[in-house]
């Protein structure tokens, strides 16, 4: 089926639109805060701020659009959130001029910032207050590149909505809130006042989003009145009717259902700039009843449903990520805001979750193939191979999605953490690879942890060799270590030290958000915030998980394996000589560097010597992190994903014992070090599966395949079996880059001819020409797996 002319135009407009920064939200919010500071409780203040935005920000309906609403004044005009991070004039100038992930900023907006926004927010933003309140040891570790911090300029997000608002409108949620308020026990419950303020805020937020929709209805009416084309006039009238119906009431048909989700999406991302924007979750299963009903009544055809879906799909691409600066831009340098749509899996009752819309959506994904949204399949043993193969035929196109997840493993991870199995089945993965219970959980990524850097600190007795500052604990001079175990113990103690610092910082930041930045609208949509009378940011959700994402398992495994092999087993290299060579970036010691790289058992080859070290590192990470309490009644768990932090983390490190040169990228996700895997894809999978994925909240494995492998049906079949085997071994996720190195090198040389080349980066895809040179090189270096 070919795209309609409408879709083709909308897609092109979205693709071509320049990314600009809009100061509109910042100015409206600044005005509101100036006038209202001190008038209301914090949750009510936040709700009224949302109301002010929904009442006053520009509304936009584009030509030919069927699903309407933008976060900013027009597509790809990105608002800012000065209450969280107030960009300086310099920040704005850098955003306007930096070569990659640029945001055009007008001189007017810079002037507005200078005159109104910056003077008001300086010292009052979350970012300012967080950095002010964090202890020095946290700052030292952060500056050294031991870890990153997700909430220093964006709000906790990482969440996904479930199906509840396809059967209930915001009026129904308001009724639920009112009913909850009537049950507050002001005499007996010391928290009743706080709950009451929170619930009032949530109620105001519902009205704010309803109002936002109504303003779109009014605009559509005005546009319809002027429209000469009868067909478009009817569409605009229908859009107006949709926007009066939803989100106040539950949607009645397919079109209203899409518009319903979209207003929920917009409400949450106008309220705050939570990570991963917002995710629709299992869109195929939520929309399926509307699709069936429409086809049966004749109100919908397969073609019209598909066109609506494609119009909806394009909306996500209109929203590049809010502009990031500093370390956060390094760890996540992309326009992609990580919306990730789940297909397939199993239903709450355990039955097969694949339906006809799952296939339609795979087609839509293939046809639209813009940067956003991402899509994934949740593959259960209950799903037919046909579903997997349909997904692989899209993978073959080389857009880097859909990514493939092990639905049964994801469910088991959640059950391990105490979730109800029904909630786990309604959950899935979002962002890059993160596991969560959709619509019922705050599952927060707190930051990346640079595990090879922690080994580097251990090898330097607590000192950071880059700055000569002592940021770790004194664990002894490794030259005196009698055994590998002694070295490993030093690593373990440094890890403990830095995880303590990291978690202490996160507990503080978490309280700051709980106290100062409630997400009142998001709280309406996440169970059981209403019942608990508590905010999403304050433990109101049914489940509250914090993840620490550990980076560089391949690099640290190979480094430890090299030291164990050459220093302790073979005694062919002295520890002192090795450390000196690393300090000199192997200058004059190329033969040693090659020996370390080539004559060491390395992770990714199904080599038990190396893989046992990987498992030991993983177990140590798990013991150190898993189960520690957060401040919201939930616990910390381990994730294994990097976004782009493996580039940044490599840049803060000297040479490593696996022969990696100073500043070079680390391995990404749980993938082997780039080029270290030499026994083919099944060996990579065997190595990766020796990690116990069920004790994580997500792992990320990237493999680069040569297009030739996927040319035949037989190739697709074999790849399907490879994926099935990985999932049988409890692997969490795998994604394939289907593009050969020659193409990538050509694109690097001639970016203009390859502007639309999308590649898999780490749990997401990006335009190859938009990623930095180091990352481009790193992607090219990843081992290509062909067929033998």
């Amino acid at each position, binding site marked *: 089926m070919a795209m309609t002319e409408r879709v083709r135009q909308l897609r092109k407009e979205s693709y071509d639109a320049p990314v600009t920064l809009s100061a509109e939200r910042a100015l409206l919010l600044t005005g509101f805060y100036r006038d209202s500071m001190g008038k209301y409780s914090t949750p009510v203040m936040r709700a009224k701020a949302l109301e002010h935005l929904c009442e006053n920000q520009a509304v936009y309906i584009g030509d030919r659009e069927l699903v309407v609403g933008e976060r900013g004044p027009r597509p790809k005009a990105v608002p800012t959130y000065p209450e969280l991070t107030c960009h300086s004039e310099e920040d704005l100038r850098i955003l306007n001029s930096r070569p990659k992930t640029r945001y055009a900023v007008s001189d007017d907006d810079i002037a507005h910032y200078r005159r109104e926004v910056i003077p008001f927010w300086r010292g009052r933003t979350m970012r300012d207050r967080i950095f002010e309140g964090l202890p020095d040891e946290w700052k030292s570790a952060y500056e050294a590149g031991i870890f990153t911090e997700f909430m220093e300029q964006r709000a906790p997000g990482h969440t996904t909505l479930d199906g509840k608002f396809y059967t209930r409108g915001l009026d129904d949620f308001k009724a639920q809130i009112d009913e909850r308020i009537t049950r507050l026990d002001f005499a007996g419950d010391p928290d009743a006042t706080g709950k009451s303020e929170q619930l009032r805020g949530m109620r105001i937020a519902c009205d704010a989003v309803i109002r936002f929709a109504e303003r779109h209805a009014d605009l559509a009416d005005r546009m319809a009145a002027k429209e000469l084309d009868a067909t478009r006039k009817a569409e605009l009238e229908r859009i107006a009717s949709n926007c009066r119906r939803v989100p106040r009431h539950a949607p009645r048909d397919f079109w209203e259902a899409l518009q319903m989700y979209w207003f929920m999406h917009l409400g949450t991302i106008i309220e705050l700039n939570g990570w991963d924007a917002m995710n629709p979750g299992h869109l195929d299963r939520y929309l399926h009843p509307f699709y069936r009903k429409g086809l049966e009544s004749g109100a919908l055809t397969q073609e019209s449903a598909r066109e609506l879906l494609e119009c909806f799909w394009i909306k996500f691409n209109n929203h590049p990520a809010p502009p990031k600066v500093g370390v956060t831009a390094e760890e996540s340098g992309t326009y992609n805001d990580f919306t990730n749509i789940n297909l397939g899996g199993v239903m709450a009752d355990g039955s097969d979750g694949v339906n006809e819309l799952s296939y339609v959506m795979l087609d839509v994904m293939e046809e639209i193939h813009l940067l956003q949204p991402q899509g994934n399949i949740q593959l259960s043993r209950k799903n037919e191979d046909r579903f997997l193969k349909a997904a692989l035929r899209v993978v073959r196109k080389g857009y880097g999605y859909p990514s493939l997840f092990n639905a049964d493993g994801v469910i088991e991870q959640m059950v391990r953490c105490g979730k109800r199995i029904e909630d786990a089945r309604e959950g899935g993965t979002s962002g890059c690879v993160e596991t969560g219970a959709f619509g019922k959980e705050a599952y927060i990524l707190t930051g990346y942890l640079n595990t090879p850097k922690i080994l580097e600190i251990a090898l330097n007795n607590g000192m950071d060799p880059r700055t000569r500052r002592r940021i770790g604990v004194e664990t002894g001079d490794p030259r005196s270590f009698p055994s590998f175990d002694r070295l490993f113990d030093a690593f373990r103690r440094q890890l403990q030290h830095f995880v303590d610092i990291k978690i202490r910082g996160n507990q503080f930041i978490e309280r700051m958000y709980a106290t100062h930045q409630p997400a009142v609208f998001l709280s309406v949509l996440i169970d059981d915030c209403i019942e608990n009378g508590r905010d999403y940011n304050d433990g109101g959700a049914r489940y509250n998980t914090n993840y620490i994402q550990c980076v560089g398992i391949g690099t640290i495994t190979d480094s430890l394996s090299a030291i164990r092999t050459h220093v302790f087993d073979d005694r062919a290299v002295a520890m002192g000589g090795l450390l000196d060579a690393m300090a000199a970036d192997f200058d004059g010691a190329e033969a040693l560097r090659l020996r370390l790289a080539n004559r060491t058992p390395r992770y990714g080859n199904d080599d038990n010597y190396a893989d046992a070290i990987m498992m030991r590192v993983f177990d140590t990470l798990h013991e150190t992190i898993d189960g520690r309490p957060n401040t919201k009644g939930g616990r910390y768990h381990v994730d294994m994903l990097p976004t782009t932090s493996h580039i940044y983390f490599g840049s803060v490190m000297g040479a490593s014992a696996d022969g990696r040169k100073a500043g070079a990228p680390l391995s990404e996700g749980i993938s082997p070090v780039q080029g270290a895997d030499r026994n*083919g894809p099944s060996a990579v999978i065997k190595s990766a599966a020796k990690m116990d994925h069920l004790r994580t909240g997500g792992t990320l494995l990237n493999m680069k395949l040569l297009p030739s492998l996927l040319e035949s049906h*037989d190739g697709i079949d*074999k790849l399907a*079996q*490879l994926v099935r*085997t990985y999932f049988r071994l409890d692997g969490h996720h795998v994604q394939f880059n289907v593009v050969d190195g020659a193409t990538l090198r050509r694109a690097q040389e001639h970016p203009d001819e390859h502007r639309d080349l999308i590649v898999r980066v780490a749990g997401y895809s990006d335009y190859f020409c938009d990623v930095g040179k180091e990352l481009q090189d790193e992607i090219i270096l990843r081992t290509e797996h062909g*067929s*033998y």
Partner: protein
Amino acid sequence: MDHAVSTGIIFDIKRFAIHDGPGIRTTVFLKGCPLSCWWCHNPESQSAKPDVLYRRALCVRCGACVETCPEAARSLLPDGVERDVSRCIVCGTCVEACPSGALDRLGREVTVDELIEEIGRDTSFYDQSGGGVTFSGGEPLAQPVFLRLLLERCAEHDIHTAVDTCGFARPDVLRSVAEVTGLFLFDLKYMDPRRHLEFTGVHNDVILRNLVLLTEMGKDVLIRVPVIPSITDTVDNMDAIGKFVSSLSRRPRITLLPHHKPSEEKYSRFHLERRLPPDTGTPSREELQALASRLSGYGLEVAY
């Protein structure tokens, strides 16, 4: 077990092999082949003896091989290292010493136990995909006792086996191996005996008799025809193959294997004579299709 029969010489193991039989497979390449086909892709596998491989591009001239060689067979040159073949005993010391991977073993002795462990590593993939192990070469039947032991052990582990053979072996050897083999990938190259001798170095009468033998034993056989432009792809040869295969009991399926240019470097590296005309290219899809339909005219199932 007698050490001599429980070890063999292999030159490579490829995991995730997807063109050597059903499912996801591990292909074990046994070293040594009685044929020397003009189009051979692995000419280094023809000799049964292990050797040491040198990749000049990876060499950093560190001298580690020169220093460690117990026979003083290595010497440093301005652009690499050289080996005195008359002194080298192929002990592998230099390979262990080489930091860059420029030196590598070409062929190594392995025990049945070691190989079975290696093959077993991908059992999950075989189970999932209906795959298994394929013994290829070289010519696996050239190490028949070793091969038979391997096949028996695979059967004990419930691992499906395939033997990729040129068919040139003593019939009693083949019969013994066939008793424990799941599938034969049987190369049929050229039907005319004289030209077969010219292109491969051996007569094809044994080969053809062996193919009859296997089909009469009721073995699962997949015939593979290498399509070498202007050599095997002639009308006469295809018709002869069609006639012959259609006369066999159970009419085995045929797969056409399109020729790909073997690596020039490989030939020069091993000082092997290159007899295939250098302009021999890869047959197009259309050409393959035409050959396939010609063969199907004989009532055969043909894939390409």
